[in-house]
């Protein structure tokens, strides 16, 4: 297939192929669409199998009984999940594992982490607030340490994705005295959390969360003095996996479009015989190559990107990725004609998934503003 690519390592190849095989056999658009129509969306249908197949061990380090996959390996897995519109919260899982592993809280590592890797614990990230778009300079959610060592956390977080059946919420808050930032891992059933659930544009469960948490045990504090760089690195990782997901969507969109143009006849000819349409498909392919190259460039370089200049490159490449993925889904819809603008074909769902990916952990305007 023209969209195949050379994998960086045997493990990335093996993981991607395993994910691909499982999802081809077990996840199809028809059942996905039926669940949306019947209002029975379940983002965790295959989660247990993800655990059984060992995929949830992929982001964890060797010392935590994980596989220790690189960003590149994880991106290869996520590409396949994007292709098949998988609803399972794999990206969030990878980020949550990495956040807890990087903390100095051994209790969380010993109690919460193993159950995450077994698929029993699920975490969601509560990071962004309506009043600051994606900026973390002035987040309003604040924490205060009580005399007995426990914490109070107050604030409102928006656009919390992958919220279905979560056991813990990973909340970023700041100290109301010193403005230092800190992550907390709050059990979902802790008093003082209220939820406003809804389905996201990409058909995945989301929520806005209001926190008025009192007396949170200090064992749920992930790490004090979280630096902006640490948060930025986590968001870089999030964007890379999202971009890999969009890459999967784009591969699928090009395949579907090329097949449609070959099959569909108008004016007694296959649509693929019309030069103006051929040029559009060629432009989609060129854009896809950019997406592929930039996604894996990001994945391979993320661990070493520490300088300001390198961070700028991440922002710039995100903008370029977002523009190209948008181009691909817009043209895929155009070339499918009317059916592309309906819910009845996967094209529209792949498009909406890319739209969501392109504004989940930062968007074009925000990244541009960081380099203007």
């Amino acid at each position, binding site marked *: 297939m023209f969209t195949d690519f050379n994998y960086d390592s045997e493990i990335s190849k093996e993981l991607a192929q395993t994910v691909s095989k499982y999802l081809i056999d077990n996840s199809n658009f028809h059942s996905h669409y039926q669940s949306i129509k019947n*209002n*029975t*969306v379940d983002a965790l249908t295959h989660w247990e199998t993800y655990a059984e197949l060992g995929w949830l061990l992929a982001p964890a380090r060797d010392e935590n009984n994980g596989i220790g996959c690189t960003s590149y390996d994880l991106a290869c897995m996520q590409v396949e999940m994007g292709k098949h519109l998988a609803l399972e919260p794999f990206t969030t899982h990878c980020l949550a594992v990495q956040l807890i592993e990087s903390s100095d809280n051994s209790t969380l590592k010993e109690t919460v982490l193993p159950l995450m890797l077994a698929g029993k614990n699920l975490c969601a990230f509560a990071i*962004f607030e*309506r*009043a*600051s*778009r*994606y*900026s973390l*300079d*002035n*987040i309003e959610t604040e924490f205060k340490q009580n005399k007995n060592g426990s914490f109070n956390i107050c604030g409102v977080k*928006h*656009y919390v*994705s992958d919220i279905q059946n979560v056991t813990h919420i990973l909340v970023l808050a700041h100290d109301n005295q010193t403005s230092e930032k800190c992550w907390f891992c709050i059990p979902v059933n802790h008093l003082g959390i209220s939820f*406003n*659930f*809804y*389905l*996201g*544009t*990409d058909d995945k*469960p*989301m929520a*806005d969360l209001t926190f008025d948490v009192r007396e949170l045990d200090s064992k749920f504090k992930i790490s004090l003095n979280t630096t902006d760089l640490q948060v930025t690195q986590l968001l870089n990782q999030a964007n890379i996996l999202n971009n890999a997901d969009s890459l999967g969507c784009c591969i699928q969109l090009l395949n579907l479009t090329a097949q449609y143009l070959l099959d569909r006849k*108008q*004016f*007694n000819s296959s649509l693929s015989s*019309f030069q*103006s*349409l051929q040029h559009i498909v060629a432009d989609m392919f060129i854009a896809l190559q950019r997406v592929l190259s930039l996604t894996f460039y990001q994945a391979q370089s993320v661990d070493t990107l520490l300088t300001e200049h390198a961070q700028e490159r991440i922002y710039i490449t995100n903008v370029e990725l977002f523009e190209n993925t*948008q181009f691909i889904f*817009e043209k895929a*819809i*155009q070339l499918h*004609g*009317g059916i*592309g*603008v*309906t*819910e*009845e074909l996967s094209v*529209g*769902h792949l*498009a*909406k998934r890319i*739209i*969501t990916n392109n*504004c*989940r952990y930062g*968007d*074009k*305007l*925000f990244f*541009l*503003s960081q380099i*203007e």
Partner: protein
Amino acid sequence: MILNLTDEEKCFHKELKDFLSHELTQDIVEESLKTTSVFADKDLALKWQSKLAKQGWAAQLWPEKYGGIKWTPIQKYLFEVECAKAGAPMLIPLGLKMVGPVIIKFGTEEQKERFLPNILSGDDYWCQGYSEPGSGSDLASLRCKAELKDGKFIVNGSKIWTTHAHYSNWIFCLVRTKNTPKPQAGISFLLIPMNSKGITVRPIISISGEHDLNEVFFEDVQVDTNNLIGEQGQGWECAKYLLTLERGASVASARLRSTLIRINKLTETEQLDSKNKVNTSFYVKQKLNSLDARLCAFENTEFRLQKQINSGFDYGFEPSLLKTEATELEQALAELAVEVIGPRAQILVRDSLSQAWPSATSDDVDWALPRYLNSRSATIYAGTNEIQRNLIARSIFANT
């Protein structure tokens, strides 16, 4: 926009503004702002239509004797511009601007008396049966057939992308009444009551989660012969006339200008980061300026064309030019709106989902994403923009 209006036109302009300030009430404007798809909500559009009909302004493409008004193209232009500025809903064109003019041009006097008053009053609500599952841009290949048996047409086949079929009590259809070597020659224009036995309507939900479109199935549907418009085989002529009206009769720039103003306002309220609003973004400023200039060009192109029509100029490829420019501007504006709302584009407020996963709390920016998603169809319907470019090129070469 420099209009250079005559005294008579200035007088009309004032009358128009006075009318809008009295009749276009706030509730209509607010409801209209919620419109995200191609057509306004049926009840809203009919409410506005009844006010215009009372004033005698609803049927601008019709002769006075049928309830229309003899406006010059400039008057029609001013009307569209002022309505858009004031936030009036779009009139549903299916009856007033599409089947109505076809009946007037090709129908019998009996048909005109029978159908036109109910179109004007809104008592009859029409949908269009043109496209078929196998015939999109290649309309002439349509297969839905009507056979004459015992003094009635028997219709079998299906139509797709039928906007508001679920609200309509009539459908105007292109049907094949004869197999001819030239496919266009065997097509006829037939009016069919939607409550006829053998008609079923299947909803098609758009990617924005809205229900405007449908597929309509005909199974041995009996239709009176006096519902045939024009002669048998004259359907293609009717269709071409109607498509020209569809592409050229409206003034799109005014509503695009309103959208640009609305986006501008959004940039003043949406956050770029914790300290700045979106309107401080260099990229956004540049894009707004660029779209403003492009829209300015389009406004003047449209107005220039209206003036030419005023002096007897006949339409050629110009509808294709206008359609291409208008729809691509519409998409560019919708894209910018989604960029402005940023993270809010993760939420698509769906009407249909309200149980296990309720819809997100509505927000005043919620129009942007559905508008963007629906705008993708603008370069597909009424002849794709690829087809429009073919027509423009053909005309250029023919005149070179």
